[in-house]
């Protein structure tokens, strides 16, 4: 695991989540930020800030990224979503194209 292979996602409150780029790419939006040539400063620093997404939701999103990777590798487990998180989470998912 190398530092260059990770990306830091920062929530509205400034909480940071360091995840594998591979996982972050589950989001089409983040994928575009990281791969579009010369476009985003995010690509250079390996940091993306989401002023609209709270830490609870961002962490859940990250968990989903990893769940999604595992799922694509054939591991079928439940991804539990607490009902009180559903609205915020689907908005974040919508924004992130996840």
């Amino acid at each position: 695991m190398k530092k260059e292979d990770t990306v830091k996602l920062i929530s509205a409150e400034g909480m940071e989540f360091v995840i594998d780029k591979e996982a972050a790419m589950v989001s089409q939006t983040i994928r575009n930020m990281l791969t579009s040539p010369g476009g985003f400063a995010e690509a250079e620093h390996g940091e993306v800030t989401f002023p609209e997404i709270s830490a609870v939701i961002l962490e859940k999103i990250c968990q989903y990224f990893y769940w999604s990777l595992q799922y694509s590798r054939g591991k079928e487990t439940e991804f539990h979503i607490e009902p009180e998180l559903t609205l915020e989470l689907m908005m974040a998912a919508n924004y992130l194209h996840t």
Partner: protein
Amino acid sequence: MAMYIRVKRSKTTYFIQCDPTETTLDIKQKLHTLIDQPVNDQRLILMNTGDILEDSKTLADQKVENDAVVALTLRKGCFFLLVFFFCSFHFLEMFLIAHHPFPVILIC
């Protein structure tokens, strides 16, 4: 990589991919590449039990499962400093501080 764990320190959470057969030391080496802290200075604590993870044991041995939350503390100089001021939404952490077997600051 069959699973991942969430390693939390201060305001940062590291998602670390790993296998149940890996040892605590393996995890610490992965963390070393991310945070430049020597393996010996790291201490990992499984959040839902409060157990300190032992270097030589595997994750499976210590009941560290997929999506588990592990707290990371660092030794600064000759102190083990528990840097532990998480956001309030993790009541588990608060619980841990209250029930941790070590005092917040230990003299070597």
